[in-house]
């Protein structure tokens, strides 16, 4: 009796299980990304990207754990075209850290999950709870944000903005006035339109002074750290505030104002005199940004290897800066291999007690995110 058959075609449109579990997986990816932010923030492929790029992030926390054999030590079987011989190379293992994704599960080994995320999505997560601290209203308002609000009703307007409910009410009212009830016809006089207004939200204006040590002692690693910090800082300020001005100042023994591009790409050499950049900053504030009108933020990144005799002067200048600025941040980049303990400059800065002075030490890439969070901690009332 076997061999009977049925062919059917049901309606599957309500079967959503795969989709629901897929969404749950996506949620877990997002959670995992958030946990990985300290590592992601200083990922080279992001810092050097143009911002449009989709980056691939391996997420090991979403691995499915099982007892497995060590795939690297195991032999696997494959099939050749008839001419294979011992010693033939089938594939190269991508170099560690090159960020090269594996091709479509073709190669052996365990594939761990790689999430795809755009820099913008990542930025959103990074910036989630950042803000400009100690922001105060200033006289000269430049920082604005525009908003459109529908808040008025008029008798004339664009037909796409007809307020149906109010129009019908008007028609009923009109008939009620003449002692009738119900609704028959809408006359042009009944028409009501929704109308918008553009509102300007005045915000305080802000200037950020980005200062970076480009002396010879700042190696590729130190520069990279400073750069990734400023990369996120600039990005953050540009996405959150419409009219933040950023001034880029690079220094070694002497300081000068540079363009954004130069700031991120050019290196210099020579010794270090941090006071030079602080002087320049103070000068720029004096000439261009009156603290009466602007919220000022100064951030300086250095390896701390300052000329010893310059330290006291630096301290004085920082105090001067604190009088003008809402916040002064100092980031000291330590090589992960040597250079433990504080630099003499930092030790000098320890004398500062003003809470608006924030110093951080960055020992490796993963410290960049906490530094961002520390500098841009949202203060109350924002």
């Amino acid at each position: 009796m076997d061999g009977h058959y049925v062919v059917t075609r049901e309606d599957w449109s309500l079967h959503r299980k795969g989709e629901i579990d897929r969404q749950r997986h996506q949620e877990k990816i997002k959670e995992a990304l958030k946990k990985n932010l300290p590592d992601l923030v200083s990922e080279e492929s992001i810092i050097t990207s143009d911002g449009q790029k989709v980056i691939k992030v391996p997420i090991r926390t979403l691995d499915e754990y099982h007892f497995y054999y060590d795939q690297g030590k195991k032999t696997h079987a494959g099939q050749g075209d008839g001419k294979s011989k011992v010693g033939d190379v089938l594939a190269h293992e991508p170099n560690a850290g090159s960020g090269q994704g594996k091709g479509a599960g073709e190669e052996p080994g365990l594939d761990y999950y790689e999430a795809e995320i755009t820099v913008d999505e990542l930025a959103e997560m990074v910036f989630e709870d950042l803000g400009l601290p100690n922001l105060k209203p200033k006289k000269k308002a430049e920082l604005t944000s525009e908003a459109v609000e529908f808040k008025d009703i008029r008798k004339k307007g664009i037909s796409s903005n007809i307020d149906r409910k109010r129009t019908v009410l008007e028609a009923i009212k009109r008939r009620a006035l003449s002692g009738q009830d119900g609704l028959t016809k809408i006359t042009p006089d009944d028409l009501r339109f929704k109308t918008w207004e553009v509102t300007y939200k005045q915000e305080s204006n802000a200037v950020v002074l980005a200062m970076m040590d480009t002396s010879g002692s700042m190696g590729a690693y130190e520069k990279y750290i400073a750069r990734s910090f400023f990369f996120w800082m600039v990005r953050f300020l540009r996405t959150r505030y419409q009219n933040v001005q950023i001034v880029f100042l690079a220094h070694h023994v002497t300081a000068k104002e540079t363009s954004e591009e130069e700031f991120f790409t050019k290196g210099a050499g020579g010794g270090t005199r941090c006071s030079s950049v602080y002087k320049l900053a103070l000068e720029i504030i004096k000439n261009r940004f009156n603290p009466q009108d602007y919220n000022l933020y100064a951030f300086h990144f250095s390896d701390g290897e300052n000329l010893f005799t310059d330290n006291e002067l630096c301290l004085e200048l920082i105090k001067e800066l604190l009088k003008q600025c809402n916040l002064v941040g100092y980031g000291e980049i330590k090589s992960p291999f040597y250079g433990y303990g504080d630099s003499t400059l930092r030790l000098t800065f320890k004398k500062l007690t003003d809470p608006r002075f924030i110093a951080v030490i960055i020992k490796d890439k993963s410290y960049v995110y906490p530094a961002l969070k520390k500098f841009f901690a949202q203060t109350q009332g924002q």
Partner: protein
Amino acid sequence: MDTREELRLLSEAIEKIIAKARELGLDLYDMYFEICPADIIYTFGAYGMPTRFSHWTFGKAYHKMKTFYDYNLSKIYELVINSNPCYAFLLEGNSLIQNKLVTAHVLGHSDFFKNNLYFKRTAKNMVESMASAAQRFRGYEQKYGRNKVEAFLDAVISTQEHVDSYSWMRTQEPEEGKRTGKKSSWTKKNCLINGEEQKETPYDDLWKLDNLQENQAEEKQKEKDKKFPPKPQKDLLLFIMEHARDLEDWQRDIISVVRQEMLYFWPQMETKIMNEGWATYWHLRIMREIELVEDEAIEFAKMHAGVIQPSCFHLNPYYLGLKIFEDIEKRWNQPTVEEKKKYKRLEGEGRKKIFEVRELENDTSFLRNYLTKELVEELDLYLYKKEKDKWKIVEKDWAKVRDEIVAGMTNCGYPYIVVEDGDFNKRGELYLRHCYEGINLDIYYLEKTLPCVYQLWGRTVHLETVLDERKILFTFNGERIIKRFI
């Protein structure tokens, strides 16, 4: 063409194909064909079953498969389920000729499910029982919270392949733990009495020696009797389900369900090459025998070529299985003079032989018995390995290639782990042992999986394995992993 007309044409084709399959000797379940859209087919593919419980790992698999489909990288034409009646899901949008091939292929699977020995014990109503389990799981989520149920499922799934598909085959001995010692102690007592009674024989001292030894043996036996489990137990999930102390009923239910489902899927995992080879063998034979117009013949040839395309990194089960079945058929159709003499093999018994093979073997025995030197060489099979940063071919000797492939399929490719002691250190700790056969475990994954076992067992867990030729014990005590050589 409207869909009703399409369905009618498909029904006609299926009717013919079934008739042809039965004529050729296939023994089928009743068939239930269902046409579904791509995302449904891929959902089923990811879950292994339309009605299975919900978990993010399935969502992940679904996403991956669906992405591959969307980018046109791979395509599932069908999905077939081991049940009675046998369900086959066909991809909406398959052309008629594609569906013909798929139908012929599916009938091969249906015959295999029905007749292969290893499927004899699989539940044939799994569609329904998985559905009811999924419903219970949803209930648990509502009652105990989604995160709690999910976290527990995560842990169970991470150990799901450690079940014992062959427990029914093991010899039925009385359970040693329950042995009261009536019989043995009785005889031994007698023996002792005898030993005392029979004085004055020249062999007294020898008897005594015997008793001494027996006493020692008895002591040892007692030690052994206390062991729990009395013999190493492969079914880790069953052991945990029965003996973990702090599990709640719903948790034991989840373990039980995951275990049952794994036992259901296990035969499919261990007959992948045979099952696909068999289905490919039959779609080829059936399609050759039914009438095709020219366009159809070309489309069919293209599709078949896609199915059996070999890869330099994997064995294609469709291709390998097909080649072995064809080779067996050829060798039993035309045995050599030696084979005729030595094994009394008759001519023309090829078909009969392959039907016998599909009934009795699984992948390991199939390859061990029928992957010949000639086949390994013809298919150009090899072994490759990672050397520094390169994946290199390291072996082409046919016997070594065959043995290594077979070894790699043992226990479906998973490390063989047994419960050695469920009361280790007399503190109710769980002691697992990896039966080392020359390949190290992945330490990263081991250290991540052991905490999952801990989560189920509720107390300290140990895993003994071998690393760099030395025995090593990994312990997770709820806080951290400790490892030491033993």
